């Protein structure tokens, strides 16, 4: 935890309210996000219990699996989910704008610009918590290798038609969520704790109710008390007033309410199957419907509070103005969405279970680049984030106290002005360290020359830093107007780079070297998970 986060958390404890950790919103929020509040069955990994889903906060769709261990009911749930999520996703696939992309020409091997489509906007999924993102990934994993009756008529338990496709999209969203700064799939708790510092631990911040209690406590209550209430308060039946955001459910709910209701449902179903005539069947069907309604009511009861909190959290986030570099990152998300749309359209197979060596290395490199980019962009977008970096000695701000013109040696001398900055910060400047400032949105580099204090040493109050500006001053002998700070200017230099260089190109997968096992060979069509003896239903 950085020093400024520790300070903000201490302040939150002292004041009883969460403190801002950002002055702008650092993630894109769609005008029309799809919110998904999933629940899973205790002890049955990957067996959904139900979900609230939709784009209209006043009209969520409730999907319930009354017997989560029943494969047919589970497929029905997934088919319903696909009927809601896929039209939402496909609604963004049509509107495109023309864009350019650099590609390697397969014949000449040269890098050439090609005209391609870029989706004008992308669908955004919001889940309540980080565990929800994991669950989306798990659902994607469980669906994308399934075979439909149309694909493979002989497969036992064929999946409903659109379920494998939903699996591929959820897999794509789950994978994209691992890219730092991406916003295709977001968790409300992560979004909120990025923008506010509460007086509780990071672990406790994963409880959406407690987190919101700190940020937006009810009238007359402190954040700490409201968070405690959210975590612990129960009604007369021993049920939590603020149910967990899921996908896991509260054991007291499972034991006292859900398990008996499912048992009643099972009994009603058995009774219906044993019905001997139409009249009996009719009345038993009524009992079964009532039992199902009861479970639907239970699931609604524990998902609705979370649903409302997610939207409340989005309201709070929308009050913050969007950071100026957020749009650029969202464009990357749009590229990612467009890319997957194209792969689906081209009839490519679902994402493989495991990445090959080259794909894994490319993903890791891309994510590291995005992480560095995110850290730099957040600091440049937000003075409060920059303050944290300054406090950590990774940036410094101050006033220009002197500018001396100087030139580089060589045949064509270029301007290399010396700028003296008086700062109250204490940057960790190594000898000849490179520093950067933002000049009209582009980074200008300077070199650390030395300290210019009287005794040549820094003191506790800060430092007088001499820098040599080395670029972005134009081609002439004299620097361009406005490209060199003047005396009295307030400037902010960072020790980190503002833009990320692209990494080296890795070999193509078919050229994987011997150190990494050689070429992976032809991709095989991966089968869905085989039936095992544990699959009792």
């Amino acid at each position: 935890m950085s020093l400024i986060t520790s300070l903000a958390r201490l302040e939150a404890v002292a004041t009883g309210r969460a403190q801002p950790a950002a002055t702008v919103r650092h993630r894109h929020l769609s005008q029309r996000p799809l919110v998904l509040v999933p629940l899973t069955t205790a002890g049955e990994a990957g067996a959904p219990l139900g979900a609230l889903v939709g784009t209209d906060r006043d009209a969520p769709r409730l999907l319930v699996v009354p017997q989560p261990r029943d494969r047919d009911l589970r497929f029905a749930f997934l088919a319903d989910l696909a009927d809601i999520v896929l039209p939402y996703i496909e609604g963004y696939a049509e509107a495109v704008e023309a864009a350019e992309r650099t590609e390697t020409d397969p014949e000449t091997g040269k890098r050439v610009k090609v005209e391609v489509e870029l989706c004008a906007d992308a669908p955004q999924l919001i889940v309540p918590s980080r565990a929800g993102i994991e669950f989306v990934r798990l659902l994607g994993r469980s669906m994308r290798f399934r075979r439909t009756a149309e694909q493979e008529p002989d497969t036992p338990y064929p999946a409903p038609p659109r379920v494998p496709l939903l699996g591929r999209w959820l897999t794509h969203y789950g994978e994209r969520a691992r890219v730092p700064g991406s916003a295709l799939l977001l968790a409300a708790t992560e979004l909120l704790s990025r923008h506010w510092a509460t007086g509780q631990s990071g672990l406790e911040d994963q409880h959406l109710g407690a987190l919101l209690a700190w940020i937006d406590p009810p009238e007359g209550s402190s954040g700490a008390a409201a968070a405690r209430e959210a975590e612990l308060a129960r009604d007369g039946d021993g049920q939590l007033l603020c149910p967990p955001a899921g996908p896991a459910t509260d054991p007291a709910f499972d034991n006292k309410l859900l398990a008996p209701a499912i048992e009643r449902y099972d009994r009603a179903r058995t009774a219906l199957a044993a019905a001997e005539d139409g009249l009996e069947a009719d009345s038993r069907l009524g009992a079964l419907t009532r039992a199902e309604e009861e479970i639907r009511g239970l699931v609604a009861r524990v998902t609705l509070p979370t649903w409302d909190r997610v939207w409340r959290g989005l309201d709070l986030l929308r009050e913050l103005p969007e950071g100026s570099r957020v749009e650029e990152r969202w464009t990357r998300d749009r590229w990612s969405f467009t890319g997957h749309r194209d792969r689906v359209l081209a009839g490519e197979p679902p994402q493989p279970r495991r990445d090959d060596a080259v794909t894994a290395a490319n993903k890791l490199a891309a994510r590291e680049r995005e992480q560095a980019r995110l850290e730099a962009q957040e600091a440049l977008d937000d003075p409060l984030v920059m303050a944290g970096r300054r406090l950590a000695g990774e940036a410094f701000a101050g006033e220009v106290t002197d500018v001396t013109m100087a030139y580089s040696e060589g045949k064509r001398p270029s301007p290399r002005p010396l700028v003296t900055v008086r700062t109250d910060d204490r940057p960790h400047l190594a000898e000849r360290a490179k520093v950067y400032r933002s000049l009209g949105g582009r980074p200008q580099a300077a070199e650390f020359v030395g300290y210019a204090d009287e005794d040549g040493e820094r003191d506790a109050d800060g430092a007088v830093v001499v820098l040599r500006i080395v670029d972005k001053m134009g081609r002439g002998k004299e620097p361009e107007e406005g490209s060199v700070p003047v005396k009295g200017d307030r400037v902010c230099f960072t020790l980190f780079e503002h833009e990320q260089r692209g990494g080296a190109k890795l070999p193509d997968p078919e050229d994987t070297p011997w150190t990494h096992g050689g070429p992976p060979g032809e991709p095989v069509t991966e089968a869905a998970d085989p039936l095992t003896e544990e699959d009792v239903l």
Partner: protein
Amino acid sequence: MSAPQATAAEAAFDPGAAAARATDAILRDTVEGPHRGVVVDSPPGAGKSTLVVRAALELAEAGRPLMVVAQTNAQVDDLVLRLAEKNPDLPVGRLHSSDADPYDKALDELPQVRTSAKAGELTGLPVVLSTAAKWAHVKVDEPWRHAIVDEAYQMRSDSLLAVAGLFERALFVGDPGQLDPFAIVGSEQWAGLSYDPSASAVTTLLAHNPELPQHRLPVSWRLPASAAPLVSDAFYPYTPFRSGTGHGDRRLTFAVPSDGSGPDRVIDEAAVSGWGLLELPRRHTPRTDPEAVRAVAAVVRRLLDRGGAATSERSPDPAPLTADRIAVGTAHRDQAAAVRAALAELGVTDVTVDTANRLQGREYDVTVVLHPLSGRPDATAFHLETGRLCVLASRHRHACIVVCRAGVDDLLDDYPSTEPVQLGTVVKFPDGWEANHAVLAHLTEHRVAWRP
């Protein structure tokens, strides 16, 4: 290990001969062996660079075009200088980046060294050296016959993937006990895959090519007889090594007698035993614990003031213990910055102060270490990492002084390792928790409690 046999083996152990045997076997496998790769594990100060230079010269002599991959520019420059020193007639290429000041200016004075940012301008030279990052941008039609990959345990698997297409065969040299490479984002999704991109290059190489010969250098020439057994037991439990020197071969003396203060007492303890623990009162502190930082600075100041002299096998006369022979090691960069500031206040400038990551591969007479767990309320995986402590505890030729708050042993017991178990990954022994306890138990025998 029954005692009488061990004593007999000790008497018969000739470090020079053992090291020479190991080196000969490595060179034989490298130059004549049938395998595409040879892996050499080298404990701290075992002559890794010397081996790399010798192998490079032998391969060049055998007429095999050779590329050398190191991890940092400083390492590359150091190898170029060593090669030039050993064989001034061998033409050497130094491939560098196109940044400003990409290499050590000292290379410009060597007529046999050609420097360029373009690999094409260095073709035909018997040996070309560069960093892994730069090699990754090089494209060739014809791969090099041979490569030497230095610090291969600090190289990430994905970085090897980017350069492995450039060579046919390679010698991989590195120290498995030092810091593992790391990624700044999570990489759990690939844990357990043989080619996990965040694993070390050697891990991936051996997972795919388990038949490759693996050698190790058996003798540390850097670590004194007082340090080798501890470092070997704590960090290399299954691949022990010995010190190249005996207990009487190295001596550290001070002209100015102790003034009885904590720093002086711990200096005297370390001069005699090779280890010293300056223990400050138990307390939870911020990372840049001002008292501990001042204590580190005070120890360094006294080391310089007391006229230290180091006697070793290198020369019959004692060498003065000067600022460039002392280093301070920390876990975090802000701690290093704080120590630098504290030293500047005491008028000390030329002492190296750096983090474990940057001290890797370096060697000093005396090191002063701010313990990674000192004053912490918790023990995270970062602070427990075996390699971090190993680097900090194995940079010295004479003595190592550790400054630490009391209570680290309790902290360790409160925070046993709780990293999730990943299927398919090779469990690394020893774990940081175990190694920390082993080192701490030994240091406690050389403890000087001090209240500043």
